[in-house]
């Protein structure tokens, strides 16, 4: 079936929903395609807050937020993008409140704010209360509020439509072509639908499922990134992947930084607050890459806890029942349900968990996808949120800035696409354009024998966790590059067991594995080629940052013999790179 809209939004998390809202309010015919239902998107799992320099609790300025973002990202952040992020965060959060978001309140009725890792006053002096929050379900409330407003604005949703290809007119996306639409697989009956549009937004989120211990939903399989990559568009800074310090031991479910923001501490097997040795000023509120590394080093040096000495404790007991139950209710419940631990009386076992892709589809400040080091836009194609790399997070994202990013740039995407749609004409789509992807899916569905995709996925996740994790060395990353190449080859022979057409999740999981492999390939190759340590990319063999050679973004292009890399300069406006001390 063929369906046309002026604009298509792929993914219904915070970025996609806000873009769709802007488009619908402007009267642009918009379709939102999501492989889930919108309220199932992983924006809803964000807990702690969304930073904006409102100054409701104490003095604050967006310039301070911008500085923290740049320093937190170890100076790989594009500073013009960080300025947009910090500046527009303020009006964006106020607009969310106007839309109905139930923020916690100060005694005088303003939006309440709390501390969060890496967010400081006066360019690094001391922690500042900048994170606006709704208990510890801020992301849930953002997702609900945006979905509610999309319903109010009459946004057209295609729920459980799995986008399986991107369409271009006049050449590939990486080769001067213009976005023309998408092909989507309707999960309910396995039918392929061709959607035509002037403008397409990729807002498909991250790819954390390539790691074995992750906070990410099962659905986070890098779909948008991989589809762009397959059409000749590079992936930027894929080697920068955030491991969040406080994942539930053995499972990876996240315990929000809000626990540390409210005063929770980290303890090793000797009962020591070990962060004093790594970040004496910021302590537990140092940026996530530093805290995750500290945990890794404590465990490596024998100060881990438990039978395998492979976790540390997050301790909130001293905060008292009132703070824990009022401000950290979900976190407390997670510990009870998933570990059987009572945080009121017991410390909680935690370990770093794969959490967030700083890299992704390269875009400019207007959310237009760009395809080279000169920032040449791909006409009609946009990206925002975790799927995109604008780059506001550089080498390490600060807590809450994921929500700030998807809100600020989702909103920008909607406005940019509105203007674009008003000027553009509908591209031509050739008949039978969905046939190549139909053939791929049919081959997967009907292959008579081969290996199980779920076992192959486990192999990929273990390989990446062991070799492209918190600490990296050349031999580890070489093993990852070779291992991913082998997995990619094995993938050509996987066999799905469900050959039906109705709700065939076996088929779609196999398809998603292909996306993860593409993302892992770009990540491993980008990582081994960056011979320095910066932010979340931390190498034993190259422990120092190297601004002479690597103050640059990586662009990984897909190729038959593996990815090829190019580099583009970082935009520096206000803050010259300095050593990063907390």
């Amino acid at each position, binding site marked *: 079936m063929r369906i046309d809209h002026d604009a298509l939004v792929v993914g219904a998390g915070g970025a996609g929903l806000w873009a769709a809202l802007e488009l619908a309010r402007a009267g642009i015919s918009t379709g939102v395609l999501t492989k889930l239902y919108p309220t199932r998107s992983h924006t809803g799992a964000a807990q702690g807050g969304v930073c904006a320099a409102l100054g409701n609790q104490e003095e604050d300025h967006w310039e301070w937020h911008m500085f923290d973002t740049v320093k937190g990202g170890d100076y790989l952040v594009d500073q013009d993008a960080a300025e947009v992020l910090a500046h527009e965060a303020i009006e964006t959060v106020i607009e969310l409140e106007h839309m109905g978001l139930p923020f916690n309140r100060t005694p005088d009725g303003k939006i309440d704010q709390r501390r969060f890792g890496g967010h400081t006053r006066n360019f690094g002096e001391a922690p500042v209360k900048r994170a606006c929050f709704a208990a510890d379900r801020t992301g849930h409330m953002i997702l609900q509020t945006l979905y509610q407003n999309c319903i109010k604005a009459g946004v057209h949703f295609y729920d459980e439509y799995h986008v399986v290809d991107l369409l271009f007119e006049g050449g590939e996306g990486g080769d001067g072509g213009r976005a023309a639409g998408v092909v989507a697989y309707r999960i309910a009956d396995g039918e392929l639908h061709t959607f035509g549009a002037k403008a397409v937004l990729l807002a498909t989120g991250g790819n954390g499922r390539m790691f074995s211990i992750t906070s990410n939903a*099962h659905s986070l399989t890098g779909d948008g990134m991989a589809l762009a990559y397959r059409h000749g568009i590079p992936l930027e800074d894929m080697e920068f992947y955030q491991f969040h310090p406080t994942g539930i031991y053995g499972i990876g479910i996240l315990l929000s930084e809000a626990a540390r923001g409210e005063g929770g501490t980290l303890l090793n097997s000797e009962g020591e607050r070990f962060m004093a040795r790594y970040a004496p000023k910021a302590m537990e509120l140092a940026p996530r890459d530093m805290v995750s590394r500290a945990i890794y080093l404590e465990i490596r040096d024998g100060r881990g806890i438990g039978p395998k000495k492979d976790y540390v404790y997050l301790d909130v007991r001293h905060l008292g029942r009132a703070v824990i139950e009022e401000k950290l209710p979900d976190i407390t419940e997670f510990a009870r349900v998933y570990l059987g631990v009572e945080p009121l009386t017991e410390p909680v076992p935690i370990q770093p968990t794969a959490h967030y892709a700083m890299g992704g589809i390269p875009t400019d400040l207007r959310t237009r996808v760009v395809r080279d080091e000169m920032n040449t836009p791909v006409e009609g194609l946009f990206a925002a949120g975790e799927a995109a790399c604008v780059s506001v997070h550089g080498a390490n994202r600060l807590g809450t800035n994921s929500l700030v990013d998807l809100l600020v740039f989702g909103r920008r995407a909607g406005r940019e696409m509105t203007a674009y749609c008003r000027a553009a004409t509908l591209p031509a789509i050739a008949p039978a354009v969905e046939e190549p992807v139909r053939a791929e899916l049919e081959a997967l569905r009907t292959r008579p024998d081969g290996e199980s995709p779920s076992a192959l996925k486990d192999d990929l996740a273990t390989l990446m966790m062991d070799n492209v994790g918190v600490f990296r060395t050349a031999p580890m990353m070489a093993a990852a590059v070779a291992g991913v190449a082998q997995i990619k080859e094995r993938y050509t022979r996987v066999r799905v*067991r469900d050959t039906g057409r109705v*709700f065939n999740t076996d088929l779609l999981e196999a398809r998603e594995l292909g996306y993860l492999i593409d993302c892992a390939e770009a990540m491993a190759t980008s990582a081994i080629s960056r011979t320095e340590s910066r932010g979340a990319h931390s190498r034993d063999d190259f422990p120092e940052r190297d601004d002479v050679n690597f103050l640059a973004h990586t662009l990984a292009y897909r190729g038959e013999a593996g990815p090829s890399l190019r580099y583009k300069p970082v935009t520096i406006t206000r803050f010259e790179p300095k050593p990063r001390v907390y």
Partner: protein
Amino acid sequence: MQVDLRILRFDPERDAAPHWESYRVDAEPMDRVLNLLISVKADQDGTLTFRRSCAHGICGSDAMLINGRNRLACKIRVDQLGRKITVAPLTGLPVMKDLVVDMDGFLAKYRSVMPFLIADTPPPERERRQSPADRARYDDTTKCILCAACTTACPSFWAQPSYVGPAAIVNAHRFIFDTRDDAGDERLEILADKDGVWRCRTIFNCVDACPRGINITRAILEVSRAVVERTV
């Protein structure tokens, strides 16, 4: 330990009617039912079909009937259920395949109560003020994740499928008692309908089913009281 897992299966492309299938699964006491389902799908039968996403009780994808009660598969543990576990789709919604039900009717009811803030006054330059006490008034009902566990546990809904159901009333409550909202009367009008709040028989199944711990019956009673106060 080993668990005997019975699952109500239905494939519309093969089966005339749903039927039970049994699986023996290795499990740890702290495993959740979702772990068992994933294990069956990976190792025993790749055609087993269920929705899942976040796997920690926040996205609402995997509500199902587990040992006779509506639970999120990712949030109920083996040690809470024992060695014999039965899993079936939610009751009262059309089954698409195995544990997957058609959510369209459920979401249409959610939409029918105007689940969005309607403020008549133009927004101020900064945030609308709201006291912590006023904010607390509707805190409980902001937790809803639209998993449908409550509505599909409700005997009134089973008896009368046109009943708007507890989830929709919860979401109406979230706005009716928000001081920033000006459309409470319109929502109360909708819920005063014969398929509105009056169908609640305070059976409390919804409260037992809610994975978010929302006191749904209390929310429905508060809305009912508001309906009376405005229409009597």
